[in-house]
């Protein structure tokens, strides 16, 4: 196909350097650049950025069309994954020739699948890329050398990326950096081939904005389109809402596909203020203030923002001034148009007269000035920017929880009965329909306390939790928490605020250098002499000064980003460590299961699962005779546990074992971690209870399905000094992990987007292993390891036999596995080192046990022994054993039977189309393992309590 451009590769590298975390920063920078650059230079930069992004974009599309995390992160990982995938084939080849055919076939299949997905997703490259991919596939098959195939694959990807980049460039010129940052350009191109959906967005002035988006477009794309339509640059204060199945207003997650969030086929949205700036005078542009005014007018008129009679009148008078200009005594019909406007829930003639009276006093005020005055008064209202949620306290008394810039407010009726400022809150979590905040101990108190509230259902608990996470991030952090950080959180969703913080958006605003855009006010048509064009704002100065302060903060974030960037290099190195990769893959598989639980991730997860399954197959194939060698390997690992390299060095045969091990490790690690972390112990317990699915990955992944999730606000915010080191460590670990994962990820190729999630998960394991060995865990791990080793060998032996490979796809929510996953992620954040050691032993148990154990472990502290026990139980209990287990079953007389049982747990808030996910999973499974037959599909549908809560 097309030849690659040298520049492109460079770009790719850059992109790779910036991991998911970085991606955010990139966005920021890119946006800021965009903003700043009114002219050619800026455009160029944008183009570059866009190119880089576009390259990434293709990958994810290819792998998994999916889901959601922040586009940038996903994008970044994708290239890496691609490389990894390529590498993977090699690994397969290296491993013993037991079943070369199968191994080869599986990679090829994967590739094909990926390609197919790519072709679908990538509009720009569509025709050519698809052809390319096919060609590549053919070549790969012929060669049978996985490595070669990989290289080929890379080429096509690059080509596609190039194409996309070109497109991006074109569009970047037209639209602004915003679009370029996102995928908008690409999508536009795709329109012709992609399914388009018409979105209706209700704007703040009540008008309806209609636009077409690709069916798989993410929330951000639509949001940018709306902002573009509005000519809005300071868009970070705004967001899109939709009504969920229960008529609840939800924020559209910009990082996730719209389709997966909204109620089936109801593409109806509203553009709203998401973060009410505490000081609107610091906004840079009048148009931003105007939009904020529109929102507040609605808030006031609807009663959401309560205010007194006098305030209603005052605000109404400013609205009149802004919309109609000076009061004109000659116009005898003031009351006519006034009563057409809604100023208050109970608007009386008396109020209208008062409004007119006050309107007279605003003579000479420009619309912009009137808006400013409006905001200056509105911002002082006690409920300004407070997002209220119904709840009950511990005694069942009805209360309201209000989330705002400063923290969390507790209202009983209209009274404020408590207040938790962000700095006072150590952790925010939810479990089922319970919402918890852990409070920093007061001066005189020794222990932190946890306050719990009951929400109506688990969805509202999650919604509240997300709002808290976002508000805290936006108003308290200098930069959003890097995606990797989620490890800090014990259980639950990895959801984080993905946009810019107030600090960042203010800084970006200072770079806005465009003439004040002319915009039409709702009723400005009627105003003959209104001064819309001449907004004069002294605010700009103030904003700039503030911005000046902020840069420092941002720089910090940048530095972090850079660190993350370094990862790519590392990633490249890992390829040599094929065994490591294998392990990672296994881990992924399980993770993917967990992921499946998440609503959003379902499809992606499925893909991942499939990929992982194929990897497992390969590993089995490759895997040599079971026990003896494995023991050695285990020992090595135990001793050398810390470094990933040692693992890599291990023979490929081990891979299978390793895989299992890794899984276990994670579990184990998680268990210890949980106790260590502040409240995590409790959480872990909860998780154990929940075991089922919600907690596991879904939570960690971003998920929406999760029952539980934790968020430690302080860490990122004020604690940054102390905590920063930890974070960095984690990041580093993560990076390492990422490398490993990437290498191993052959199967993982699935979704770049998901990669973040995966990476996190995957990272966890690697990080644990490395850290653990080096630091503490070694001693502990060793003892544990032996036990596991014994078990492992058996598994390997079983694996060797590969005959029939029925895949059982179960859509159910088995309690066990998922829970474990969650715990693991927690551990990473808190106690990486310890975990690593523990992980090794865990491996044995891994398969089934994990889930139960994790829960139990939480309580105990060291769950290793418990883990093993649980594993047994789990296996028996659950109809569908964990992937690992199934593999083991292969032993049968002289005939080798490879049995791959896939368990796909789909947990959803109703957002997920279970049937669709299942169908896709089955389809993919077939594709991945053409030589195998699907013997059984068990659909186990469980309605969890959480859902019932609805």
């Amino acid at each position, binding site marked *: 196909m097309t030849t690659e451009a040298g520049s492109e590769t460079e770009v790719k590298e850059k992109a790779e350097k910036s991991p998911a975390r970085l991606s955010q920063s990139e966005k920021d920078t890119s946006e800021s650049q965009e903003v700043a650059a009114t002219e050619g230079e800026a455009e160029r930069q944008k183009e570059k950025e866009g190119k880089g992004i576009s390259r990434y974009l293709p990958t994810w599309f290819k792998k998994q069309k999916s889901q959601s995390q922040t586009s940038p992160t996903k994008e970044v990982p994708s290239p890496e994954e691609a490389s990894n995938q390529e590498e993977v084939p090699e690994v397969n080849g290296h491993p013993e020739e037991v079943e070369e055919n199968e191994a080869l076939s599986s990679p090829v299949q994967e590739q094909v699948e990926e390609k197919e997905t790519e072709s679908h997703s990538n509009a720009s490259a569509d025709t050519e890329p698809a052809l390319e991919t096919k060609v590549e596939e053919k070549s790969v098959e012929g060669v049978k050398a996985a490595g070669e195939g990989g290289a080929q694959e890379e080429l096509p990807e690059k080509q596609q990326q190039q194409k996309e980049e070109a497109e991006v460039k074109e569009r970047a010129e037209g639209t602004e950096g915003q679009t370029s940052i996102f995928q908008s350009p690409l999508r536009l191109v795709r329109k012709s081939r992609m399914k388009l959906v018409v979105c209706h967005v209700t704007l703040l002035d009540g008008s309806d904005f209609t636009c077409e988006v690709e069916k798989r477009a993410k929330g951000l794309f639509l949001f940018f389109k709306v902002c573009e339509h509005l000519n809005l640059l300071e868009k970070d204060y705004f967001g899109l809402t939709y009504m969920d199945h229960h008529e609840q207003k939800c924020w559209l997650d910009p990082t996730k596909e719209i389709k997966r969030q909204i109620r089936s086929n109801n593409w109806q949205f509203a553009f709203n203020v998401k973060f009410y700036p505490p000081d609107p005078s610091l906004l840079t542009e009048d148009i931003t203030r105007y939009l904020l005014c529109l929102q507040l007018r609605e808030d006031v008129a609807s009663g959401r923002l*309560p205010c007194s009679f006098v*305030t209603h009148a005052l605000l109404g008078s400013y609205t009149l001034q802004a919309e109609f200009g000076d009061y004109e005594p000659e116009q005898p019909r003031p009351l006519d148009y006034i009563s057409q406007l809604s100023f208050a829930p109970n608007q009386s003639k008396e109020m209208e007269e008062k409004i007119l009276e006050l309107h007279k006093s605003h003579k000479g005020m420009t619309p912009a000035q009137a808006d400013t005055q409006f905001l200056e008064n509105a911002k002082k209202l*006690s409920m300004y920017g407070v997002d209220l949620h119904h709840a009950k306290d511990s005694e069942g008394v009805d209360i309201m929880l209000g989330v705002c810039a400063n923290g969390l407010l507790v209202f009983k009726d*209209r009274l*404020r009965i408590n207040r938790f400022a962000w700095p006072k809150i150590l952790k925010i979590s939810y479990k089922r329909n319970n919402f918890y905040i852990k409070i920093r101990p007061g001066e005189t108190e020794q222990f932190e306390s946890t306050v719990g509230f009951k929400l109506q259902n688990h969805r509202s608990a999650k919604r509240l939790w997300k709002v808290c996470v976002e508000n805290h991030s936006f108003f308290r952090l200098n930069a959003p928490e890097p995606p990797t950080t989620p490890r800090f959180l014990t259980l639950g969703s990895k959801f984080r605020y993905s946009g810019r913080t107030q600090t960042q958006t203010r800084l970006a605003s200072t770079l806005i250098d465009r003439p004040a855009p002319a915009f039409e006010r709702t009723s400005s048509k009627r105003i003959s002499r209104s001064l819309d064009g001449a907004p004069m704002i002294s605010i700009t100065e103030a904003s700039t000064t503030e911005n000046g302060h902020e840069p420092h903060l941002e720089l910090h974030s940048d530095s972090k980003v850079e660190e993350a960037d370094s990862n790519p290099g590392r990633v490249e190195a890992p390829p040599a460590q094929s065994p490591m990769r294998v392990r990672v893959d296994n881990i992924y598989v399980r993770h993917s299961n967990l992921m499946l639980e998440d609503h959003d991730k379902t499809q992606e997860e499925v893909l991942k699962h499939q990929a992982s399954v194929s990897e497992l197959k390969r590993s089995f194939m490759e895997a040599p005779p079971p026990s003896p060698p494995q023991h050695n390997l285990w020992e090595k690992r135990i001793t050398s546990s810390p470094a990933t390299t040692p693992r890599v060095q291990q023979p490929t045969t081990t891979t299978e074992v390793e895989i299992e091990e890794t899984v276990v490790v994670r579990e184990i690690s998680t268990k210890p971690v949980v106790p260590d972390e502040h409240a995590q112990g409790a959480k872990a317990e909860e998780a154990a209870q929940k075991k089922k699915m919600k907690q596991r990955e879904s939570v960690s992944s971003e998920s929406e399905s999760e029952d539980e999730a934790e968020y430690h606000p302080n860490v990122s915010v004020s604690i940054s000094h102390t905590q920063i080191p930890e974070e960095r460590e984690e990041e580093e670990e993560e990076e390492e992990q990422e490398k490993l994962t990437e290498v191993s990820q052959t199967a993982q190729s699935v979704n770049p987007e998901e990669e973040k999630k995966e990476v996190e998960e995957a990272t966890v394991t690697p990080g644990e292993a490395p850290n653990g060995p080096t630091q503490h865990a070694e001693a502990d791990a060793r003892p544990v390891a032996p036990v596991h080793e014994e078990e492992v060998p058996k598994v390997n032996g079983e694996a060797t036999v590969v005959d029939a490979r029925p895949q059982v796809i179960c859509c159910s929510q088995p309690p066990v596995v998922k829970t474990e996953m969650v715990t693991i992620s927690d551990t990473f954040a808190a106690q990486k080192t310890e975990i690593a050691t523990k992980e090794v032993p865990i491996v044995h148990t891994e398969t089934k046990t994990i889930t139960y154990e994790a829960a139990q472990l939480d309580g105990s502290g060291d769950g290793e022994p418990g883990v093993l026990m649980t594993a047994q139980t789990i296996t028996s209990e659950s109809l569908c054993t964990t992937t690992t287990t199934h593999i083991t079953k292969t032993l049968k007389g002289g005939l080798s039977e490879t049995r791959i049982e896939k368990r796909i747990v789909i947990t959803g808030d109703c957002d997920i189309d279970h049937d669709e996910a299942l169908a896709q999973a089955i389809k993919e499974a077939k594709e991945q393992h053409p030589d195998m037959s699907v013997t059984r599909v068990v659909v186990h549908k469980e309605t969890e309590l959480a859902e019932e809560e609805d």
Partner: protein
Amino acid sequence: MAGLMAGFGCYTHAIVREVPTSLAKEALRTSQAEVDSTKAQKEHDAYVHVLRTTLGLEIVELPVDETLPDSVFVEDAAVVCGDTALITRPGAESRRRETEAMKGALKDLNLNIVEMIDENATLDGGDVLFTGREFFVGLSKRTNQRGAEILADAFKDYAVSTVPVVEGLHLKSFCSMGGPGLIIIGSSEPAQKALKIMQQMSDHRYDKLTVPDDLAANCIYMNLPNKGQVLLHCTEEEYPESVKVYDKLKDHMLIPVSNSEKVRVDGALTCCSVLINKKSNH
């Protein structure tokens, strides 16, 4: 432009009420103290004199009512903020009728009247601390949650937070505002605890000035044209140590006002007047 929450401490009018002779014997009190009716009368006259003559406020004097021994403490009968006046429902049943005269006077001043008619609600103005940005309502023997809710409904612009009052009659028995963002607080443990709660509940930061005597923490702050910041506080004879603390306020015009008799029936400085700003129309 008078905006929201502008002009804290700006007053033009003060509503007061004469001391009934029944106060000495019949006024409610938490202690068994004896009150010198004549002396109380004198103190009150001096108090009103300061408001009228020294500070130039327009005084609205409600007619004396001997059947209402506590009626001199007009603060409990109404809460006025901006153009809105909430007629309370005093916690002590014997004081409920005090609101009648108050309501009439406030109506005459063209304030928006909100009445607390809920029979489950009680609220004494002495439990209401307005900081200029928000309300704190003490939940005391005289004020309950429902009363606070109605107050919150009457003043929708402002946050209304509740503070348990475990000791003392009213919230303002141990605290008051000494200026915008400055809370004068007594040094007793309950007072300090209440302050902490207020600080925790508030989005705003308040400076505090701690005085040794809880009762001395009740003072009257005003910000008057041509006068600047004015503070009416206790006298040296009553609370010498606390007066030393007040003396540190260099930016305030400090006016000691004697309150030795009314304090025996739990009356503090703020209790004896309702301050109104009629020029601060929006």
